[in-house]
């Protein structure tokens, strides 16, 4: 789960990492009231989960109440690359002497946490990593020991932080690591980590991703994120315990198992089609779950044809067939379906489909054949 800036900053604050005073608001009047309470100058910041909000006019400095009102009015409701601004973060404007970069993430290759620090803050860190890798300190941490203060001081020193803020940067790194551990984050990033003219070190931005699988340990974090801008079908799928990712094409896809579904998308694309979604119905799907999944796929109006690609292990093909029959009774879909059933109880599954003689349902015997057929059918029904 990706957090909005202000949500990340609130987590930072909870673990002793310095951030500017601020308030999250959703109306212009509240924005003005917040700005008046915080004291000018303030920064009015759009809260969206997409980069480039500054360039899109989503971050503005206000030196008085009139400006605060003007900016809040302009930014609320703004569409930034498809993300509608519904929340503003109003914070006291910081004077900046220097901009650094700091992050903690999971290093999947080393199978350890990775702390990164650079004095080249405020810019795209991937460019720093590519063009001047010596300016990006990368330090693996033993997760059984944690990030010691000595190690943090060493990282700050080697990274070239100003001598008088080494301690402050080390404190920030330890606090950021604590956020990462305590909140079960997969990413905790500050860009920029600023030094003020009076030599205070604080987080001017926050990019935090939490591990959905660990939310049972953090019920207080369950409602974070930006569900208002999430795709409505993806949200509904999440509630139903099905994994659905919306894509741009017109061929609905359902399969069992993430790898097989990814492979199906590739094969459909290879056959000249454009998938409308990724849908992993998961292992052991029963008929009711299959019906729900088909309803999800068809709720995307772009869908012109649907491919069911099932290789049953835990999943039983007869259950899938029964689910499809029930879905047709309930939804009476107008688009063609291609169904490929292999694996556990496949003979029975195919028999059920044959007997049901559903309109516009085509049985395929191979994955490649199924892909070619669904692509042709989608073209016809466009």
């Amino acid at each position, binding site marked *: 789960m990706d957090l909005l800036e202000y949500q990340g900053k609130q987590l930072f604050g909870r673990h002793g990492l310095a951030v500017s005073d601020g308030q999250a608001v959703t109306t212009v009047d509240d924005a003005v009231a917040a700005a008046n309470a915080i004291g000018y100058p303030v920064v009015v910041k759009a809260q969206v989960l997409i980069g480039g909000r500054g360039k899109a006019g989503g971050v503005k400095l206000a030196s008085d109440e009139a400006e605060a009102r003007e900016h809040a009015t302009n930014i609320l409701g703004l569409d930034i690359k498809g993300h509608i601004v519904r929340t503003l973060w109003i914070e006291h404007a910081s004077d900046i002497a220097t901009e650094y970069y700091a992050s903690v993430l*999971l290093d*999947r*290759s080393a*199978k*350890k*946490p990775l702390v990164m620090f650079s004095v080249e803050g405020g810019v795209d860190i*991937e460019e720093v990593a590519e063009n001047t890798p010596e300016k990006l300190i990368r330090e693996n941490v*033993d*997760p*059984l020991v944690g990030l010691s203060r000595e190690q943090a001081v060493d990282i700050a020193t080697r990274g070239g932080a100003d001598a008088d803020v080494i301690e402050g940067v080390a404190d920030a790194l330890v606090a950021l690591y604590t956020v990462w*551990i305590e909140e*079960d984050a*997969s990413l905790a990033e500050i860009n920029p980590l600023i030094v003020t003219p009076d030599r205070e070190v604080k987080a001017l931005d926050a990019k935090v991703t939490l*591990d*959905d*699988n*660990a939310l*049972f*340990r953090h019920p207080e974090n369950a409602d974070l994120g930006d569900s208002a801008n999430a795709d409505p079908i993806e949200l509904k799928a999440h509630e139903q315990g099905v*994994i659905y*990712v919306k*894509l741009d094409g017109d061929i609905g896809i359902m*399969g*069992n*198992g*993430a*790898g*097989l*579904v*990814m*492979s199906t*998308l*590739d*094969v459909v*694309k*290879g056959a000249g089609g454009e*998938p409308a979604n*990724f849908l*992993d119905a998961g*292992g*052991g799907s029963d008929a009711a779950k299959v019906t729900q999944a088909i309803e999800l796929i068809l709720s995307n109006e772009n869908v012109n044809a649907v491919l069911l690609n099932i*290789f*049953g*292990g*835990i999943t039983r093909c007869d259950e899938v067939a029964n689910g499809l029959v029930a879905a047709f009774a309930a939804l009476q879909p107008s688009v063609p379906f291609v169904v490929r059933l*292999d*694996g*556990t109880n496949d003979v029975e599954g195919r028999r059920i489909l044959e007997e049901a003689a559903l309109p516009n349902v085509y049985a395929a015997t*191979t*994955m*490649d054949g199924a892909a070619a057929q669904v692509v042709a059918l989608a073209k016809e029904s466009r």
Partner: protein
Amino acid sequence: MSILIGNDTKLAVAGITGREGSFHTLNNRAYGTNVVGGVNPKKAGEDVDGIPVFANWEDTVRESGANTAMIFVPPPFAAASALEAAQAGVELVVIITEGIPAHDELKLYNTVKRDHPGTRVLGPNCPGLLSPGKANVGIIPASFFKPGNVGVVSRSGTLTYQVGNEMAQRGFGNSSIVGIGGDPVPGSSFIDIIALFEADPETELIVMSGEIGGSAEEEAADYIAANVTKPVVGYIAGFTAPEGKTMGHAGAIVSGSAGTAAAKAEALESQGVRVGRTPTQVADIAIEILGG
């Protein structure tokens, strides 16, 4: 020969009394796997269709001689159970459970590596492994596979069945089929399993089936070039996956230019590993190499 499991396997299962746990345990036993026990602290002394249930892993290993553990317990408790099995001296711990927090996986991996180097962990979020004709530990539908000379290692369960089935239809059998799982911190990597296949006299060809996310396939490519004499055929799922979206598996995500299928296929091909663009092509290449 086969790798990791075979006629010497003595399997015990944590979560044996649950719906999925009991179903698959009995399936594994029906296939011929020697299932010697189960773990459930609340049901110690009972049995599941004749399989004795013990209170903890220490008792299980002492009483039953188990050398292989399968973990079916729910995500909040799965890593702790796996570690307990390692502490009890189990050599192979197979974690089927999906949805374990990444930090738990991270601590488990590093703790086992530091304190129990004699234990190998497979998974989490994996389908387990099958040595056709000998033993099945996990949820792989064994009826599609027969003994043979192709070793398969994969991050995805159902994709393994697809690839395996394509090969089986053309007459190939398997030495072992190993699912390493789709999570961010797998206990065993492609490299670990490929090294075992390289050393296994029965395996003549290795199929590795990867997917987007991380860099395990790239690391395997370098390892294969330096250490593997047997032919390897690759497959990567997720060429068309969009950036920033988790494609089902917690570990399957393209972030920026990192973790793309194209980069992985290129890394493998640059080291001489042929990569099929579809599961069918993987079988085509295997036939070319081994002869139909």
